[in-house]
């Protein structure tokens, strides 16, 4: 059981949870993830580790409220528990001194980007953060990333803050202005695809972090399989980061929709249970 230290909605559909997980806090590296299960009835879902405090033995998770598990998570309070946390899982980011690294985060993808950006900076890179959100109030971790980055560019779709642009526009400007050695892009699949398309021609090494559906997270089920460079890989043990130029993003989008129908059933049932007070949490 993992005690929750804090759990707040930082936006209407985005939560931030700090929870006890001393082993994960001790060993996690940038780019790794955990699998959690809320309670005995819960599914196992992967979430990237946004931050950790070794002394306190806690980790920080950001979650978008999109399905039954994240909806239930959003209802938990300080002092409540998560039943299971397994991790750290997956390969850490290949952090090295590359030169200039553009760290691109879109929406909730900014959360997993944060430790990578920090690790890239600590490894001696010039780090340019490009953060994208639909609007100003949907932007997270801006101050933290500004504190790390040599430069931090913020874009919003509606122009309510920073540049009115997509992250690809900001990347294009950056690439026109200076040499970029490596790009790290984490966010919605269309964003990662667009970034990868843009860096393919100039052959800029591009890492993307994939958010496939998983069950065990140890390579046992193969539910998270993705096509990379024409071959099948498992996101959990071969990733979660892959060369963006080799990822079949269309297949990923399709597979992410596998349980759309079931998700609606589950979500409806849960909302109904909440309304009539039968919610077992």
């Amino acid at each position, binding site marked *: 059981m993992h005690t929750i230290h804090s759990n707040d909605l930082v936006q209407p559909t985005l939560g931030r949870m700090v929870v006890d997980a001393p082993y994960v806090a001790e060993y996690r590296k940038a780019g790794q993830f955990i699998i959690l299960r809320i309670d005995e009835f819960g599914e196992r879902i992967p979430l990237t580790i946004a931050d950790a405090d070794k002394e306190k033995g806690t980790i920080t998770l950001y979650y978008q409220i999109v399905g039954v598990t994240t909806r239930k998570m959003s209802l938990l309070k300080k002092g409540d528990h998560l039943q299971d946390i397994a991790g750290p899982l997956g390969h850490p980011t290949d952090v090295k001194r590359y030169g200039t690294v553009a760290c691109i985060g879109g929406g909730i993808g900014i959360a997993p980007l944060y430790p990578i950006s920090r690790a890239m900076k600590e490894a001696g890179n010039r780090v340019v953060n490009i953060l994208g959100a639909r609007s100003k109030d949907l932007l997270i971790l801006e101050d933290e990333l500004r504190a790390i980055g040599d430069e931090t560019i913020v874009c919003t779709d509606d122009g309510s803050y920073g540049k009115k642009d997509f992250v690809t526009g900001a990347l294009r400007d950056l690439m026109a202005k200076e040499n970029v050695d490596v790009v790290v892009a984490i966010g919605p699949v269309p964003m990662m695809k667009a970034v990868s398309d843009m860096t393919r021609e100039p052959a800029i090494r591009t890492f993307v972090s994939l958010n496939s559906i998983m069950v065990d997270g140890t390579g046992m089920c*193969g539910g998270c399989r993705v096509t990379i460079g024409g071959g099948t890989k498992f996101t959990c043990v071969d990733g979660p980061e892959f060369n963006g130029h080799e990822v079949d993003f269309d297949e990923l989008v399709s597979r992410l929709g596998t349980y759309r129908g079931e998700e609606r059933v589950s979500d409806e049932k849960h909302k109904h249970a909440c309304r009539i007070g039968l919610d077992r949490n």
Partner: protein
Amino acid sequence: MPELTPAERKNNFNEIPLGYSKETAMLEASRCIQCKKPACVEGCPVNVDIPGFIKEITDGNISGAFSVLKRTNTLPAVCGRVCPQESQCEAQCILGRKFEPVAIGKLERFVADYEREVENTAAREADGKKDKKVAIIGAGPAGLTAAGDLAQRGYAVTIFEALHSPGGVLVYGIPQFRLPKEIVHYEIEALKKRGVELVLNRVVGMSQTVDDLLDRDYDAVFVGTGAGLPLFLNIAGENLKGVYSANEYLTRANLMKAYKFPEYDTPIIRGKNIAVFGGGNVAMDAARVANRLGAENVYLVYRRSRDEMPARLEEIHHADEEGINFQLLTNPVRFLGDESGNLKGVECLRMELGEPDESGRRRPVTVKGSEFIIDVDVAIIAIGNAPNPIIQKSTAGLDTTKWGTIVVDSETMKTSKKGVFAGGDIVSGAATVIEAMGAGRKAAAAIDEFCTTGAW
């Protein structure tokens, strides 16, 4: 043994064979002629004293029978259900030459169930206490057996398990109707009572490694991480939505209880037409789970004939009874999907049997021009598992075979690395529960020896 009828099984996950009463068990036991040189014992991978425990049943001493079983078999309630007795002990039974062999497996199950339900025997005290610690990686049949034996010998034992629930294939793979999970939980509780520590959600080799365990606290490590890397067919369309590995399908259904969705949160696609590929026990399990999840048609597609199927006869029989549509001598060529990436069908080819291959089974050869399509919305690939690679990749000095299994001394289960032992599917490749338990038992004895003498 009385069973639920196929109609009674169709929509639930209840166990099928209903078990013996004490009277029936004593009657069946009385058929054993107590051979002087019992061939059945030779047929058992862990050499259970079969005439010995059967004699106790005949005398009505079920606790006595249980003690005899427990001397060589840590999990009799499990083995009585999932062992392939028809090719092991019962295959050797002398009565089987003229009549039905003694129902050794069913008697074993009866004794273990009786003990659990009626007697509820307290765990035995450990034989003394040792100041050495042993780490077990993987809480499957091999690891649980090694842990039980070592705890009995007085060692401080910690089991590290990657999943949130111990049991390995017994909980994620084998369905409830073949092995009720309560039995596994009972055995785990018994281990805990004997002082075995369980660390769940811990994937050794991802952060802490085997070397870390040896450096820190542990005098020896046993690796029982199993064959948990699913093989796929490597044909077109395999990543369409609706194509599962048997591991994923069964894990969702069994471990995550997706058959109770939405009471449980984990979803599973409830297909109307489901094809399972393979001919082993896992394929039978997947097909029968699919049936219980409400599929209208469940096809079992196997490229050889029924005689070559590696599954237990009882499982093939049960699948047949439940209306699984066997498509034998049939091989999938490609999966077909719709514009949204959903599985729609599978194109197959008919096969015929040619010359025997290296396994001695006749090799299936394609029949030219025999392509046909089966309409399916779910496909389950059950053609086997490779060893889980995590420990091998993260442990220096651990010799492996070209198949990725760990090399051990077959008597002591010692690996090439001092202090590290291994057993079960991670050594043998995918095999049976009883063989994994046998390996766990051998390893425990060798670990005891190593910790006592320090000699490698």
